[in-house]
């Protein structure tokens, strides 16, 4: 069965269904992360003076800066992969989507080293309030990275990208929808980086 309005816009909304759906989903994601950001503010206000700054100083700013640049790069490559499909250049799409997946992998590898570095020093989520909210926020964000990789990996591999041969417009819209999600994951990190590492 074909999902309706994935290529042609629905007359009443003026949008394809998948785009409206992903934006509503992202709105719910704003509230999910918003709840945790709110918890962060609450915990920071209640913490003893300098406690958050002390535990925050144990995090690696260089590693997080590199990760920020890696995620920003992946945001550009994913939008370029969509633009390549618009230009009917499937090979370029494969290249840019592949680069996006590479960036996502690099991000997770750096995150892995950050986490294990903390564990080696005996720092766990239970070590302090700051570490509790740090691992919760970055862990949930990391799960979003993995989720995005699964979807984009599917669309990069032949089993997902074969839709291009039969219905290129539908496939292009799928990539755009996944891209919107990916930009949101980048957007969350843009706020996580300063509040956890820099402040």
């Amino acid at each position: 069965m074909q999902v309706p309005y994935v290529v042609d816009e629905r007359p009443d909304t003026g949008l394809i269904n998948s785009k409206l759906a992903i934006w509503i989903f992202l709105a719910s994601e704003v509230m999910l992360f918003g709840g945790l950001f709110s918890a962060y503010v609450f915990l920071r206000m209640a913490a003893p003076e300098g406690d958050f700054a002390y535990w925050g100083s144990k995090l690696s700013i260089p590693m997080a800066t590199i990760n920020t640049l890696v995620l920003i790069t992946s945001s550009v490559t994913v939008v370029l992969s969509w633009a390549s499909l618009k230009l009917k250049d499937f090979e370029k799409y494969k290249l840019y989507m592949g680069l996006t997946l590479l960036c996502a992998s690099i991000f997770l590898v750096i995150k892995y080293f950050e986490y294990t570095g903390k564990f080696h020093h005996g720092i766990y989520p239970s070590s302090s309030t700051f570490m509790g909210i740090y691992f919760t926020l970055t862990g949930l964000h990391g799960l979003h990275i993995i989720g995005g990789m699964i979807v984009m990996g599917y669309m990069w591999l032949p089993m997902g990208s074969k839709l291009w041969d039969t219905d290129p417009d539908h496939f292009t819209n799928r990539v755009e929808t996944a891209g919107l999600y990916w930009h949101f994951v980048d957007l969350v990190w843009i706020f996580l980086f300063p509040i956890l590492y820099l402040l």
Partner: protein
Amino acid sequence: MSGNNQADIQEHIKVYLTIFGALAVLTILTVMASYLDVSSSEAIFLALTIATIKASLVAGYFMHLITEKQTIVWILILTFFFFLVLMLLPLITATDQTGV
């Protein structure tokens, strides 16, 4: 996004690369700003201002919000309102005198 013919897309690509440059510069700026000798409230203001500019660039250009349909803009305005309520919830503790 408005205008999806080949020439428009080529133009969009130039915009994407410019935004990428801006985001990279702002990332370096926010790290540099964190080493400034300012009060903690000034540091918070500075970091969040830069983060908001970066987020606006991503949402506006990469997510095409500046040219997106009104339906989506209204969904996001509503979401932003509820997000603001969530962010202001901790302030209740500032006025809560229970146990003082």
